[in-house]
């Protein structure tokens, strides 16, 4: 139900890659902890409407990188060029970050300005993520899996041009995480957008991404940049995913 204007605007942005260049990101010393160089020469471009997965070991600086791209952290050396798409950027965090004192529906509505036409899409969106029954529930009464579905709904309702996701499916049991991955792919296919998705789970990276960027441990820089050669059908096939995973990460 996106308006014609929105679609036209989307196509206009679709032509322009995102450029990220972090020369150095240093966290200043805190207490008795020394200053820490976290990112060094991390530079890449993301093609419009592609699904880039950034992986790397825990603590290598993935979240730090995403916070920089999101504009939450501007204390770094380097440049960021998101183009006009930067105005429609959404971030789905590692924890759902829903307002506990607002219902699921209110949480989603708050992502949009008052009187926005996209508000009318909320019931449909809730149904798509399987939360039609939970619209009026407070988030803390829901399971973590359901809270994450709500966070997905909130992210997609704004029809973002850029969608950042930071390990949005960690600490879920395997079937739940798997169903959320399938939901994400479904939403992404019906609402194509440029995704930067972070995970340390390699199988997840292969299953979701069209391209993988692997960061090296410690003073992270780009260690590997690979295209994923899987069809949509193959992404649902565990053995195909495993084969591709072995091929891509053989170098690691």
């Amino acid at each position, binding site marked *: 139900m996106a308006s014609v204007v929105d679609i036209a605007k989307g196509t206009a942005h679709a032509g322009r890659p995102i450029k990220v260049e972090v020369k150095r990101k240093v966290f200043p010393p805190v207490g008795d902890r020394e200053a820490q160089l976290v990112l060094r020469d991390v530079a890449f471009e993301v093609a419009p409407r592609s699904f880039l997965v950034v992986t790397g070991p825990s603590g290598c600086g993935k979240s730090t990188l995403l916070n920089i791209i*999101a*504009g*939450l952290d501007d204390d770094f050396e380097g440049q960021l060029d998101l183009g006009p798409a930067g105005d429609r*950027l*959404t*971030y789905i*965090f590692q*924890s759902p*970050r829903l*307002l*506990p*004192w*607002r219902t699921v529906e209110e949480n989603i509505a*708050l*992502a949009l*300005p008052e009187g926005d036409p996209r508000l009318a899409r909320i019931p449909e969106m809730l149904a798509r993520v399987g939360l039609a029954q939970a619209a009026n529930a*407070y988030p*803390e*009464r829901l399971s973590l899996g359901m809270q994450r579905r709500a966070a997905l709904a*909130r992210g997609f309702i*704004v029809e973002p041009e850029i969608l950042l996701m930071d390990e949005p499916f960690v600490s879920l049991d395997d079937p739940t995480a798997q169903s959320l991955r399938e939901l994400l792919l479904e939403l992404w296919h019906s609402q194509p957008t440029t995704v930067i998705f972070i995970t340390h789970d390699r199988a997840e990276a292969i299953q979701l991404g069209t391209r993988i960027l692997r960061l090296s441990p410690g003073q992270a820089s780009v260690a590997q940049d690979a295209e994923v050669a899987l069809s949509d059908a193959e992404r649902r096939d565990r053995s195909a995913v495993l084969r591709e995973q072995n091929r891509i990460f053989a170098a690691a």
Partner: protein
Amino acid sequence: MVGSLLTLVLLWHLLAVILQNKYLPTPVEVVDVLAREAGNGDLVKHIVATLMRVAAAFVISMLIGTAIGLALGLYRTADKFFDAWLILFLNLPALVTITLCYIWFGLSEAAAVTAVALNKIPNVAVNMREGARALSRDLAEMAVIYKFGWWRTLRHVTLPQLAPFFAASARSGLGLVWKIVLVVEAFGRSTGVGYRLNIAFQEFDVTTILAYALAFIIIVQIIEFTILQPLQAKVTAWRR
């Protein structure tokens, strides 16, 4: 709860009947005096005077205490500088603030309310400072990403996080304000429950003291159950 209170009244009655001392009236005599004071209009007059002072001191101290607490919680330099002041005021005995206010500002209504508020402000400030310190950075970032703007952020993110601290300050605050208002009235006012208790004390009129104390407790409990508890339940309804 009713049973345990009835037992207390019964014990009191038995004790009063056994001792037959004029400084320990029976519950029936106390209720008689209460009825008399209600009949001649004194009870209402004094209770209303006290309630007005409580309300004024409560509102003033909540407003100023909240402002100070939030400022200290959000700005580290201010917190470092004023922390010592706060500790000083927290430990200042109520009697000192009351006497000083009366001496400096005269035996006026303004001095009375100021004295009560000064006693309460540091508690509210400390409480709200905790609230401000506990504000979630995660949710603040979420509000930035989803372009909440200042008004939505205040209304949907910040205030709901502060509400439990505010409610706790209000409840504990009212308890404190009630008690201090009585002292202030006993010292330098010619209306109010505190004033009436002081007169009764000078006449060693225990029955009147107990009658007013009883009326007072009942009013406080009514406010607690009809306003404060429902309010607190409302701001914490979303909790599991």
